């Protein structure tokens, strides 16, 4: 079971890295997502994937015993995986919104065209269009009309 999971994890890492090397931003984000899920699965595998039965215990020390004796599935990595999934979910949601906004600002999702951080000289890159008013349309996850 573990070797199968290991192969799957390896495949996911390879697929994730391949997608990360693409020029299209959307594919890069999908690659990141596959890559992080690979890492999550690896954490899961690290916790001894077993089922109860055939001498495999629940990870609870029985009454009167000092420690677990037989094989057991370690619950800690599963807790870690849950945390990691929640974190990566939040960050990927932000990444998707950022991609959408960048796509609107640049007019393309080609990474080769996103070079204004390196080529635009002299201008103040953070200067906002002169416009009074509310904060709406201003936070990175809201759309601005003047872009």
């Amino acid at each position: 079971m573990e070797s199968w999971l290991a192969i799957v994890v390896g495949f996911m890492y390879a697929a994730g890295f391949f997608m990360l090397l693409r020029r299209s931003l959307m594919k890069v984000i999908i690659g990141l997502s596959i890559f992080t899920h690979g890492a999550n699965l690896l954490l899961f595998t690290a916790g001894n994937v077993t089922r109860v039965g055939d001498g495999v215990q629940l990870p609870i020390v029985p009454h009167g015993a000092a420690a677990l004796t037989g094989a057991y599935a370690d619950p800690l990595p599963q807790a870690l995986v849950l945390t990691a999934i929640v974190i990566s979910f939040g960050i990927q949601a932000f990444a998707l919104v950022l991609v959408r906004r960048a796509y609107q600002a640049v007019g393309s999702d080609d990474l080769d065209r996103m070079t204004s951080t390196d080529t635009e000289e002299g201008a103040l890159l953070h200067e906002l269009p002169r416009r009074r008013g509310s904060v709406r349309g201003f936070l990175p996850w809201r759309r601005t009309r003047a872009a």
Partner: protein
Amino acid sequence: MDTLLVLPILIPLATAALTLIAARALRIQRALSFAGMASLLITGVVILLHVDEHGIAVAQAGGWAAPYGITLVADRLSALLVTAAGVVGLATTVFTGFSLDRRRERASFYPLLNVLLMGVCGSFLTGDLFNLYVCFEVMLMASFVLLTLGGTRAQLEGGLKYLILNLVSSAIFLTAGGLLYRAVGTLNMADIAEQVAAYPDTGLMDTLAMLFLVAFGLKAAMFPFFFWLPASYHTPPPVVSAVFAGLLSKVGVYALLRTFTMMFTGHLAFTHTVLAVLACATMIAGVLGAVAQMEIRRILSFQIVSSIGFLILGLALMSKIALAGAVFYLLHNIVVKTNLFFLAGVIEKLRGHGDLRRLGGLWRERPVLSVLFLVSALSLAGIPPLSGFWAKLVLLRAGLEGEWYWAIGIAVVVALLTLYSMTKIWALAFWKDAPPNEFAFTGRERDVREKSARRAMLPVVALTVVTVAIGFLAGPIFEMALATAEQLLDPSQYVTAVLGGVS
């Protein structure tokens, strides 16, 4: 003791919540953030004094014994860095109030800044590998939004590059952590240190060490992984660049210091040679980039990369005096880098841009600003008696004692080039006459900008005083750094404090 160690995480969290509640009242937000950062600084100093007197302080959350519960640990390095984070946070809050445009300031800037500080302090204090990961993510999440706040095209592009590279780093960190847990069955750093030393398969441990090196190297902007930093740090408003330059990349260096002085010390000939080579490559790449740029904040961004190289070189040499030099350099660099970005912000405020070709005549127009810039720039370049000189002197001496002559040669050349790139800013922005048809603000716009620039000088002056103080109090501070290095070189102190000590 328990509460004291929790405070550096709790204070920014509470401040962030309170500033969110006061979202509509900007003045209250400023006051709250100022109070929060000031109490963070005071807490840092109290922890530092406590650690200095009683040795390493440990807090076990909920009273669970060490390898099972969540552990917070403060040794000298953590305490020093929390204090430095407090200084930077306080200066940043003041500088924000005086320099940032209202729209950004209103759009939850202060809550984000405080969450960022929470992640930074959490990373410095945690004694658990997975909590380190969580603190990194807290810090990154806040930094993503800070970087893109305002949503101009360059910010979005820079933010994407920053985000993608940091996510890759996080996933690699997670991989390394999972594999290490599988191998040694623990996540508590003190416990890991003991288990790794006893682990039979050194090849596996070397591999894991390299995985951690990649994960933290990406965060710290080390040589082959530094490209995201100069592509993103100059895009947001200067105050954001300043706090990123002062704290964020230093967290990566802190993680490297922790990992490679405590956990992976069994095979120094391999791990620390890799570190030394990468450190030298980082220095060269950073300084050459700095020499080639023509804009103040771009030059400073590349200088961050170069100084990361110096810090890692101190770690790679792995002697007491070298680590002391690295700690001294870390403290000096946090203050000076933040201050230089503040100064770049003031110049951009006055002139509307930071392009060296179109700047000029600042010396004649603003002598005070020029002197303040000169102090920080020369300190970064390492001119005596300013703080950067002592840091570099100690590192060079450590290199000579360890007979790392090639590394020392590279460091000296890089230091010279650093001086060159700083004098380039000085000569082009301050010394030369203003270009004939230079664009200048007029009327009310000029008055507003001048007033804001004058006020923004307050935190600049404060940080310059700190820089000069580090230079002139080099003796006592270096002794503190030596004591820190002693603790780092003797992980058994940390291990007994966490696993055997009574909190």
